[in-house]
C-alpha cells in the first residue's frame, strides 16, 4: 500500500483493519487516525500510562503489514542517537590509510578522492532509517514518550515532522520518498512546545468505558471466562474512582486478567472472591501508598461491584 493509496483509504476499511489486529478503538480514535493517514500528518497521542498509546503505533504497523521503527525517548537523547552518526572508527582508519579525505561533498579534490563523509561511513539511527526505508508501504515511525526527551530534541524533530526531511551538514539533505506514518506518544510529564503540537494531529486517549474494556479483555485474554472477565473490568472500573497515585490502566487490567486466568484453571467460572482480589492486587496497584489505602471495606465494595458486572453488561 503506497502513500497515495492512503489518501483514498476509507474509514470503514481502517476500522476493519483495527478489528483484524484485535485493537478495540472508539469512533474518535478511528476518525482521528483516519485523518492522520489520509492527510499524511503526524499523530500526537496523549493519555495516561497504560492506555494503549504505544499499542496504537504497533497495531498500525501490523494492520498495514509494514515495518515499525521505534524511537524510545529519554532525557539526554541526542541527534546522534536518534538520527545518524558517523562511523568514526571507520573514518579514522580511512583517513590514516589515505583512502578518503575529510573534505565534505562540496570540498576540493572530490573528483579523485573519496570523502569520508559519505553514505558508506554513515550509521543510520531510527529517524534516518524511517526516511530512507524502501518498500511499498511506508514504515510506521513510533516516537515514544516524546515528553521525556529534552526540549532541544523536540525542536530538532520539527524539520522531520513538517517536511519529512533532515539536513546532515557534511552530506546534504535527505528527504523521504515515502513519508513514514509518524505516531508520537506523550505521558504529559511536561508540556510540549506549540511548534511541535502545531504540526501534529492531536488525540487524547482516555481510560476506556466498562463495555470497551470488557471487549478488550475478551479479545486479548480469551482463556478467561466471560463472566469473570466482566467482573475483572467492573473491579478495575471501581478502583479508578479512588484517588490513587497511579491509576490502573488498560495494561494493568490485562495483566490482572491474565493473572486471574492463570490462577484458576479448575473452577473457571466461579465469581471473584475478596481473597482472590487481595492476593493478586500486585498486578493492578503499583504504589505502596495506594496498597495501604485498600482495606477490608474497599475490598467489600470491589466485590459488590464485581457482583453487579453481569447486570451492567446486559443493561
Amino acid at each position, binding site marked *: 500500500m503506497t502513500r497515495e493509496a492512503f489518501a483514498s483509504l476509507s*474509514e470503514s476499511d481502517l476500522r476493519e483493519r483495527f478489528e483484524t489486529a484485535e485493537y478495540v478503538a472508539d*469512533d*474518535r480514535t478511528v*476518525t*482521528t487516525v*483516519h*485523518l*492522520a493517514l*489520509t*492527510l499524511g*500528518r503526524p499523530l*500526537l497521542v*496523549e493519555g495516561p500510562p497504560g492506555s494503549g498509546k504505544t499499542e496504537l503505533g504497533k497495531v498500525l504497523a501490523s494492520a498495514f503489514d509494514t515495518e515499525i521503527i521505534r524511537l524510545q525517548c*529519554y*532525557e*539526554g537523547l541526542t541527534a*546522534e542517537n536518534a538520527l545518524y552518526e*558517523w562511523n*568514526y572508527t571507520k*573514518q*579514522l582508519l580511512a*583517513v*590514516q590509510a589515505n583512502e578518503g579525505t*575529510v573534505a565534505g561533498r562540496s570540498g576540493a579534490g572530490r573528483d579523485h578522492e573519496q570523502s569520508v563523509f559519505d553514505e558508506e561511513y554513515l550509521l543510520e539511527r531510527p529517524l534516518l532509517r524511517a526516511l530512507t526505508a524502501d518498500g511499498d508501504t511506508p514504515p510506521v515511525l513510533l516516537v515514544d514518550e516524546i515528553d521525556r526527551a*529534552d526540549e532541544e530534541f523536540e525542536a530538532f524533530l520539527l524539520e522531520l515532522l513538517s517536511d519529512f526531511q533532515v539536513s546532515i551538514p557534511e552530506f546534504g539533505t535527505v528527504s523521504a520518498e515515502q513519508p513514514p506514518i509518524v505516531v508520537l506518544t506523550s505521558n*504529559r510529564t*511536561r*508540556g*510540549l512546545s*506549540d511548534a511541535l*503540537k*502545531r504540526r*501534529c*494531529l*492531536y*488525540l*487524547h486517549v482516555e481510560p476506556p468505558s466498562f463495555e470497551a474494556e470488557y471487549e478488550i479483555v475478551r479479545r486479548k485474554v480469551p482463556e478467561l471466562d466471560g463472566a469473570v472477565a466482566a467482573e475483572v473490568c467492573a473491579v478495575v472500573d471501581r478502583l479508578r474512582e479512588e*484517588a490513587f*497515585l497511579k491509576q490502573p490502566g488498560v495494561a494493568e487490567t490485562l495483566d490482572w486478567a491474565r493473572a486471574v486466568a492463570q490462577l484458576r484453571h479448575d473452577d473457571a467460572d466461579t465469581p471473584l472472591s475478596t481473597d482472590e482480589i487481595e492476593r493478586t492486587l500486585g498486578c493492578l496497584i503499583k504504589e505502596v*501508598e495506594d496498597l495501604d489505602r485498600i482495606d477490608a471495606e474497599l475490598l467489600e465494595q470491589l466485590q459488590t461491584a464485581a457482583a453487579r458486572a453481569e447486570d451492567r453488561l446486559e443493561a
Partner: protein
Amino acid sequence: MYGDSDQTAGGVGGGVDTAATHEREDVPDFRAARRHVLIELLRFAAQLRNDGVTVPTSATLHAAQALSVVGLDDRAHVADALRATLLSEPAERDAFESAFPTFWHRLRSGLSAVATDHDGPTAGSDADEREDAPTNTDSPTTDDPGVLEDAEPPDIDDSGDGDVEVRIPTERRHVTGDRPAATGESDARRYSAVGGRQRVDIDTAQLTESELAAIDRFVDALSTVPGRRRRQSTAGDRVEARRALRASLSTGGTPIDLPESQPTPSELRCCLLVDVSGSVLDTVDRSVLLAFADRLYDSARETDVFLFDTELVNVTEQFARGGGDPAAALREAEVQWGGGTQIGEAFTTLRARHPYAVDRRTVVVVVSDGLDVGDPDTLADGITWLAQRAGALVWLNPLAVSPAFEPQSRGMSTSVPYLDALFGFAEPADLAEAARQIEQRGLHGQVGYEYDRRLVGADSGGGSA
C-alpha cells in the same frame, strides 16, 4: 442576536467574496456552501481563541482539510476532526464542547439555506444576506427555535466593538491586585506569637502557562544535581568522539587531543520550607502559594515540602498524593495553618526530626516574610546549621517585592548574612526575574531583590517613601 452575526460573517468572508463572485454563475450553490463552511470554521476558531484555547493559524487550515476528508454529514465525525486539528491540550476540551453545538447548528442551518436557495445567488453580498434571510424576516421577535440560546457570535464581547477579537490569556490574576506594601514592622505587631490556627480552607489555584514556565525556569536555574545532558569540558569523564575526529585531522588522522565532555547539572533536589503563619497568608494569595509549591514539587527531581508556623509539618506526602490539588490533600490530612511565626523553632525541629531532608546537594528554599517572634538565638543557630549543611539557601520574601523593602525585621536581619540569595516573591512572575539573575550571575554571585531591575525602575520613577 442572530442579526449581529451577519456583520461578522460579511467581515470575515469579505476576502473570499471577490474571488468567488466571478465564477459564481457556473457552480453557484457549491461556492456559497464552501464559503459558508470556511466562514463558520473561522468564526469557530475565533470563538475558541476567545475562550483561551491556543489555536495556531495553520490549525484552521488543517481543520478545513480535515473537514474535506470526513465530510459535513456526521456530527460526531466533524467534532472528531476538529478536535484533532484545533486542540492540543486536554484542558481545552471544555471550551470546545461548549462552543461546538453553536458551530454545528450554524453550519447545518446555513448549509440547508444554501441548498434550498434554488435561484442561486447573483452577487457575493446578496448571497450573504440570503443565507440568513429566513431568520431575519420570518421571526424577528420569536427568534428562530433552532438557534441556541448561547449562540452568541464571538464578536459580542465586553468591549463591544465589531471585530473578532483574539484575547490571549495572560496575567489572569494578580496576587491581590496591587502588590503588598512593605510595612513589615507595623504588620508584625498585629500577629501574636501563637495565633489562632485554622484548617486549610481554600482551593489550589490554576496557574497560567507563563506562570508555570516561570516556576520551571526557577527550578532549572537552581539545578545542582547532574543529569544525563552533557557539555564540552576540559576535564570530563568521557571522550567526545565527534570533536576528537575533527581534532585528529591536523595530526594526520592520529587522535592526540581528546576533547572531553561532562554531565551538566540539570536536576534539582530541593527542600521547600513554606511559612504559613497568619502574616504570610494575609500577604500572598494562599491558593497561589500552594500551586507554586505543587509545581515546584512536580518539576524538581526530589522535593521535601514542609509547612511551618509555630509547628513544622512534613507535607511531602500530601503533595505527592494531591495530584495537582494539594489543598484537598491537606484538608484531608487535617493540616492546620495560620498560627504565629517561630522560624527558629521550625529549623530546630527540621534538624532534629528530618536531618536528611537537607544535604550538600540540596537547595533549601524558604518562603517566609521573616517576621519572627521566636527566640533570636534559636533562629541564629537554626539558620547557621541550614547554611552549612545545604548546597544553597534561597529565601523568598513576599514583602521584598516592594521597592522600599529593607531586611530590617529581627528575623530577616538575623538570617540575611547566611543566605545565598534573598528574592521578592508574591506571584510566579517574580520567580522568572530571580531565575534570570541566577542564570546570568550564578547563585553565589550578585543576585537578590536589590538587583531586581523592575524595582529599581519603580523606585526612580515613583520616588520611594
